[in-house]
């Protein structure tokens, strides 16, 4: 891991996460789309995990969740727990599979949103929130996942743009190597 890159990653990541959390609270939460609000925080955590790995993804998830719980006076630790798991799993996906497809952020964003929304609802029910389990709730979750899927690609582009230059050398080098290797296998190019 490149020391300069990793040292600039944390403050950049912290600032970016802080801005995104307050953007979520101040803007996105007040703009319902089809009756639901987009959740850019879960996308942020997922994409940080996808870019930086499981450890940073889990830590970012914990921090973002804690910030949300503190700022919104929610049950402390609830969002942290859910986002920690989301960040970790997305990081593990990068570490184990390293998917490079153009639709990877879309799928990861949708999956992270679904896990986040279902997980949060499940935790609330386990904590005894007095709300009926209904098809309406299910519909809201599905709509939320769809809305998040729509904004996943722009959010991915933004996250990568902010963090790319501060990323450790390893992921960037691996991406370059993969491109080179693919090019080397082309029958049109002589070795």
């Amino acid at each position, binding site marked *: 891991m490149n020391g300069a890159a990793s040292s600039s990653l944390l403050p950049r990541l912290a600032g970016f996460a802080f801005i995104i959390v*307050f*953007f979520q*609270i*101040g*803007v996105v939460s*007040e*703009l*319902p*789309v089809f009756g639901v609000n987009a959740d850019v925080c879960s996308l942020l955590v997922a994409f940080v995990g996808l870019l930086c790995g*499981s*450890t940073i993804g*889990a*830590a970012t*998830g*914990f921090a973002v*969740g*804690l910030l949300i*719980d*503190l*700022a919104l*006076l929610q*049950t*402390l*630790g*609830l969002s*942290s*727990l859910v986002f*920690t*798991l989301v960040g*970790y799993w997305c990081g593990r996906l990068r570490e184990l599979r390293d998917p490079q497809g153009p639709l990877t952020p879309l799928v990861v964003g949708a999956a992270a949103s679904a896990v986040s929304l279902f997980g949060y609802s499940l935790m609330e029910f386990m*904590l005894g929130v007095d709300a009926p389990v209904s098809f309406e709730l299910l519909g809201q979750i599905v709509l939320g996942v769809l809305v998040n899927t729509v904004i996943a690609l722009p959010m991915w582009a933004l996250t990568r743009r902010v963090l790319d230059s501060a990323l450790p050398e390893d992921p960037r080098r691996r991406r370059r190597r993969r491109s080179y290797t693919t090019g080397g296998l082309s029958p049109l190019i002589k070795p």
Partner: protein
Amino acid sequence: MVLGLLVVLSLLLLTAYFGEAHNGRLHGVQRDFLAVVSPIQDGANKALKPVRDLFGWFGDTLHAKTQRNELLKQNEQLRRELVANEAEKRNYHQLASLYHLDQLGVNDYHPVTATVVGKNPDLWYQTVNIDKGESAGIRVNDPVINGEGLVGRVATVVPDGAEVDLITDSSMGVSARIGANAATGLLQPKVGEPNDLLLQYLPANYRPNPGEYVVTSGTVSNEESLYPPGILIGRVTSVNEESAYESVNVHPLANLHNLDIVQVLTAGARTRPANLSSLAASLSAAQSTTTTNTGEQLASTKVGE
């Protein structure tokens, strides 16, 4: 390792927060944090307001058409309800007028119940004969009603009988108004359809609704009419497009083909209705050879003088 630590930390926070009272330490930390970030949140809220407004504008625009259609439907429904309520209100006033004749100036009249003893079969002269006459206090031009509404007026009187011109007779003309509105006009038989009436000379641009009740107005050119106000005559069937003036077709409520018992509203001696009746009668006699004006019009002309 890190995952386990963060999960355990989250669970500890969750357990501690969930278990403590509202004035507990973690709640206090949360409140302190909110106090710190509140100005930031406020500033961010203000700074991001244009962004929010921009997104909100797009959202509002997307929803505007749907909302407009819904509101149009709602407006249409409310308009229908309003019209129905207005019609019911007018009906109520009509019925109230009918059942409270005493308050409408009928006190000056003494109803004399009479039996219809003869009917004129001629299409152009819609008259009936009754078995009460001058000896019962009946005079020429006295209004005749039955339980359903206005029937006509006394045209000729003899000591023990009288001839009544029905409202569908060509010589008739009654000052009438539609429902509780101020729209008054002259009600006359409809040419070519002797069983229907035509309310003419209504105010310009007045559009009555079919089904509205037509009652006697009680006034002619701001003077008293021969007929007391509020007596039901008929219902509006349609707007007459053929007439040069604003007019509507009216179907009489009284079944004029099956009259058995009627009431003649006789006026007491020296009362205002009696004076009006005698005045109209004298004018009718004097001018009947030179004009086709109705008694109602003649009376109004003289009263106007």
